[in-house]
C-alpha cells in the first residue's frame, strides 16, 4: 500500500507544491551541507601539521628530524557525544570514516542545533568491538573501505601510511595500522574535550606533527597487527586531537 500512498502524496504535492519543495530543499541541505545551516550543528575535522594546514603527499620534518611524506590518513570517529551546559547529552552512535583523500568526509552534520552552550564533547577513535565481530557491515563500515584486517578479523581504527628516508624498508615506506578489539590489546580510545561555548560548528583539529614527534621512524615504521606497539600508537593517537 505504500506505493498507493506515495501516489496520493504526489497529488498532494501538486496542490501544496511550493510548501513541499521548500521543505524538501531544507531537508536535503541539512543533510548535505549542514555547516551552512543555522539550524544544524556540524563537526569539522581540520588536519594540521603544527600551526599549518596539513596536506597529504607534502614533505614535513618531524621533531625527531625525520623527513617524511604522508600518503594516506584515515580514521574512524564513533559515539560522538555532546554534553550541554545544562548537562543534557546528545549522542550519535554511528561510526564515521574520515579519509583525507575524500575532503567531504571531514565534515559531519551531527544534529540539530540546540543553540545551547556546549560544555564538552567526547568521542572514540576507532570502532567498537561489537562492530568488529558483526560480519559484513555497510556504509562507512563496509569492508571495501580498506579499514578491516583480513587474516585476523577486526577494524583498523586509524591508518597512517607514507614514506621517509629514515625508513630502511621497501620503498622507504612506513605503515601504521592501529587497531585491535580483544583484550589485552583493545585499541579504541575515548577522548573528552572541554568547550564551554555556544557554537554552530565544532572545529576539531588533528595535529599530525604531535603524532610523529614521539615516533622514531628509523626504529618504528611498521605496525600492522594488534599488540603492544598498536596499544602505544593508540595512546599516541588520542593525544593529537584538540579544539582551537
Amino acid at each position: 500500500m505504500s506505493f498507493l500512498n506515495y501516489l496520493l502524496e504526489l497529488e498532494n504535492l501538486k496542490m501544496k507544491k511550493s510548501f513541499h519543495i521548500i521543505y524538501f530543499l531544507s531537508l536535503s541541505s541539512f543533510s548535505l551541507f549542514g555547516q551552512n545551516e543555522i539550524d544544524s550543528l556540524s563537526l569539522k575535522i581540520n588536519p594540521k601539521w603544527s600551526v599549518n594546514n596539513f596536506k597529504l603527499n607534502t614533505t614535513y620534518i618531524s621533531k625527531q628530524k625525520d623527513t617524511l611524506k604522508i600518503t594516506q590518513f584515515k580514521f574512524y570517529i564513533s559515539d560522538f557525544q555532546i554534553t550541554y551546559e545544562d548537562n543534557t547529552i546528545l549522542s550519535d552512535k554511528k561510526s564515521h570514516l574520515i579519509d583525507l583523500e575524500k575532503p567531504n568526509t571531514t565534515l559531519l552534520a551531527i544534529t540539530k542545533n540546540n543553540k545551547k552552550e556546549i560544555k564538552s564533547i567526547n568521542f572514540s577513535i576507532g570502532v567498537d568491538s561489537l562492530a568488529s565481530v558483526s560480519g559484513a557491515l555497510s556504509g562507512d563500515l563496509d569492508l571495501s573501505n580498506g579499514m578491516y584486517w583480513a587474516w585476523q578479523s577486526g577494524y583498523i581504527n586509524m591508518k597512517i601510511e607514507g614514506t621517509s628516508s629514515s625508513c630502511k624498508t621497501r620503498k622507504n615506506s612506513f605503515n601504521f595500522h592501529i587497531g585491535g578489539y580483544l583484550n589485552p590489546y583493545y585499541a579504541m580510545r575515548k577522548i573528552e574535550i572541554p568547550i564551554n561555548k555556544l557554537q554552530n560548528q565544532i572545529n576539531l583539529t588533528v595535529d599530525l606533527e604531535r603524532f610523529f614527534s614521539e615516533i622514531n621512524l628509523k626504529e618504528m615504521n611498521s605496525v600492522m597487527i594488534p599488540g603492544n606497539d598498536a596499544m602505544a600508537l593508540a595512546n599516541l593517537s588520542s593525544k593529537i586531537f584538540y579544539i582551537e
Partner: protein
Amino acid sequence: MKKIVLIFVLGFLIFGIVSFSKSHFAPIYIEIPTNWPKPVYDFKKNPLTEEGFQLGRHLFYDPILSKDNTISCSSCHLQATGFTHVDHELSHGIEGKIGTRNSLTLQNLAWSKNFMWDGGVNHLDVQAITPITSEVEMNETLENVVNKLQKSEKYVDLFEKAFRTKKITGQLTLKAISQFLVSLTTTNSKYDKFIRNEEEFTEMEQKGYALFQNHCTSCHKEPLLTNNEFRNNGLPMVADLKDLGRMKITQNSKDSLLFKVPTLRNIEFTFPYMHDGRFKTLTEVIKHYNSGVQKSRTLSKELHQPMNLNDNERTELVAFLKTLTDKTFLFNKKYAYPK
C-alpha cells in the same frame, strides 16, 4: 475526481507488480538433522534466497575476484574433494605463488565459530576478504572487486535480483558469498544414515566406530566431527614454515602450535592432511596418532598416551572414516560450476 481514480488504479497496478516480483524472491531453508546443534550463523541477518545463493555461486566460481582474473575460490576449493584442493601440500595462488598452509574444506560452515587454521577470522561474512587480499592467493582489494563487478552487466543484474539494488557494495558481495557457503551442508553420509537408523554398518565399520568413539571424539566431536576448538596434535614443527598457529592471533604462548580441529567429513577425499598437508594418506595420519605424536609444552592432554592400535584396529578405523563420505554432497549439481 477522475484524476484521483486514475491514480488509484495506477497505484494498484504498481502494488500488484511489486508484490508479484516479491514472490520471485524465493527463500531457501537449510535442512538440519534432528540431533544436530543450532547453527552459529545468524540467518536472520542474511536471509537465504535462491537469488542470493545463485549470485554467491557465480562469485565463488569466478576469477574476477583475483587481481589478474586467474584465481577463483574454486581454484583451491574443489567440490569433488569436499571443497579443498588435492595433490599438493600447500595451496597455490596467483602467479603460481605458494601459501604456507593446506586449504581447509568448506563443509557445514554455518556451525563454525571462527575460520582459518588459526581461527583468525571471526565471522563467515568476512572470511572471503582473506584470500581476496592475500598476496599469494588473489592479491586483490575488495574495493576493486566491487568496481569490477559494478562494470559487469551480468553481475549488476544478479545483484539486482538478489538484493533489489544495482549498487554493488562490499557488504552485499560478501553476504552473497556467505549465502553459497552456508548452503554447503553435508548430512547424508553412511555415518549419518546409520545414526538415523536408515542403514547398517558392516562389522568392520562398527568396530572402527567403537575405536573412533574411544580415541577421537573428544576433539572430533559428533555429529559435526569437530569440537570447533584449537589443539596441538603433536606434529613436529617444520623448520622452513615456522608456523606457530593460533599463537599468531592471540600472541599468547599457551596457543603455540595449536591449530583448528578440522571436521572429518568426507575425509577419504580431502587429502593431503594436516595444516601443512604433510600426510598423503589416512594410514599415515593414524600412524601419527598411534606412535608419532611429539611431546611438547602445549600438546593436547588427550594425546599424552599413544593410541597403540594393532594392524586390524587401524584398518577398522579407516573403514569407519570412509563412512563419513557423502556422495550426495560431493556430486550435488547445485553446488557445481554454474552453467
